[in-house]
């Protein structure tokens, strides 16, 4: 495993940053880490990259304990609020970070133009970074993260400041990294983006992991049905709530979340048995957004 955490916990006094996080991320994949604002996403990433010290628990990156300098030389990190020395040019910033990664002269001379081209900044490298637009700042941050050709890259909201073209380019970069066997740990709010490229995801809420696994399996394990029922009554709704979770009732239209497709016939039968007239029943495959909203709205889930 490239990332392994065991009951990793961070407390800020009495306040929980994240609690008993158990994660395993395999090699050569894009791992999506999701959660609402303040759920503990950045806290976990900051612990993993060595900015925060865990209160308890342990973690290993690339098979080595947290803080190991050998492992860090193979890890790239793009912080959510990336800032830099504004008086340096893009190229100088890359040289500074190449020296922090202890890359020798020929290696950095070879690698810097490569990453500049990869993030589309080759024509802007000699401009002061302080004059970069928001999108260019994000690109130079990404260039710094991939500079040492890392085996593991943590990207905290990498596409947040980018326009649709920039987002697509970042997506391409992540896919290329995966193709070359690298592991990308992606923290993002852009659920459609995550759904498009991630192999596995974990969802964190209130500091705890509430769901995790292969994306396709997570989406397949729940289904939503939209129904149109004539003569709807409290009795029908009570009966439906024993089969699944009633998400919305709007006149005759009812949205119901079921644990699996197997419960659809029983749902139809329940409506008929309780005197309802079933005009329409349409199963919908859950999107990541549905799953996310569903999990985040639930209270008190456990790791």
């Amino acid at each position: 495993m490239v990332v392994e955490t065991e009951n990793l916990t961070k407390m800020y006094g009495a306040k929980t940053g994240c609690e008993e996080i158990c994660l395993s991320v395999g090699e050569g994949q894009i791992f999506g880490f999701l959660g609402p604002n303040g759920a503990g996403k950045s806290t976990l990433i900051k612990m993993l990259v060595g900015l925060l010290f865990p209160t308890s628990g342990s973690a290993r990156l690339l098979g080595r304990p947290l803080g190991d300098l050998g492992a860090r030389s193979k890890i790239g990190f793009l912080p959510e609020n990336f800032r830099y020395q504004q008086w340096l040019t893009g190229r100088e910033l890359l040289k500074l970070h190449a020296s922090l990664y202890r890359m020798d002269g020929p290696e950095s001379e070879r690698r810097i133009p490569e990453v500049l081209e990869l993030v589309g900044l080759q024509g802007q490298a000699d401009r002061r970074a302080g004059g970069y637009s928001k999108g260019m700042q994000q690109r130079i941050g990404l260039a710094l993260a991939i500079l040492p050709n890392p085996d593991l890259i943590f990207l905290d909201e990498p596409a947040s400041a980018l326009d649709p073209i920039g987002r697509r380019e970042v997506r391409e970069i992540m896919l290329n990294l995966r193709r070359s066997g690298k592991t990308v740990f992606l923290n993002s709010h852009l659920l459609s983006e995550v759904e498009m490229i991630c192999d596995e995801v974990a969802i964190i809420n209130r500091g705890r992991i509430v769901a995790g696994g292969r994306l396709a399996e997570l989406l397949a394990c729940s289904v939503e049905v939209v129904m149109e029922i004539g003569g709807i009554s409290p009795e029908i709704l009570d009966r439906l709530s024993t089969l699944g979770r009633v998400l919305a009732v709007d006149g005759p239209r009812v949205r119901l979340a079921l644990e699996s497709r197997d419960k659809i016939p029983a749902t139809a039968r329940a409506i008929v048995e309780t005197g309802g007239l079933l005009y329409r029943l349409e199963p919908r495959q859950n999107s990541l957004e549905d799953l996310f909203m569903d999990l985040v709205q639930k209270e008190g889930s456990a790791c």
Partner: protein
Amino acid sequence: MYYGYKDIAAHAGRMPQAVRALIVPQFLAIGLYFGSLIVAFLAVMGTVGTISSEIESGVMQSIATRPVRRAEIFLGKFFGYAFMLTAFSVLMYISVVIIVRTGTGAAIPVRPGDLGLFCLQPVILLAVAMCGTTFLPTLANGVASFMLYAIGVVGGMVEQVGYLLRSGVMVKIGIVSSLLMPADSVYRKIVYDLIASTGLSPVSNMMGPFGSGAAPSVWMLAYTGIYILAFLALGLRVFSRRDI
């Protein structure tokens, strides 16, 4: 300083040697005091946010996650600033000596020992500011560092006045303040040694708040060394263990 001395000389006509021997050291002391003050301001103002401002702005997030130890970041910054402050101090010291030499005609030597002590003054403040910046916000660290510097400066003056008025209590206040912030006692040692080396009246050392009634001992210098190391060690410890 230059024009002040020229003005006094023009009014006094041909200045008796005894009067000149009293006045020249005062001008030298004022020059060195001014120089010390400027370097002290540079040391504090330039470094109070060395780490805290980078944490506040987020720059530190991309530095501290690279394969470098926090101690390397801390000491790298300390030695970088120490080098810059030393270069500035050398320039300031030599400028003061040249101005006093040119203005008064006194043969004031550039002694490596005194020059070294002059360069040590901002390093003391640098160590304090570097320690503070690891756990205090930039503004709070600036206020705290200046307060400590002010204690040293005012305490040094109180001690000097104590020597003149033969007040044991005032001298003790000065000694305690020197222990809290030894930069001023280093300055007093430079002034004392330099004036003694010029062959000018040692009595002049006793005059005014910028003079030096007694040279701080070698133990005071040893204490200063320990003081710097202690602040650096504390800063290093705090920075190595703090969350960013």
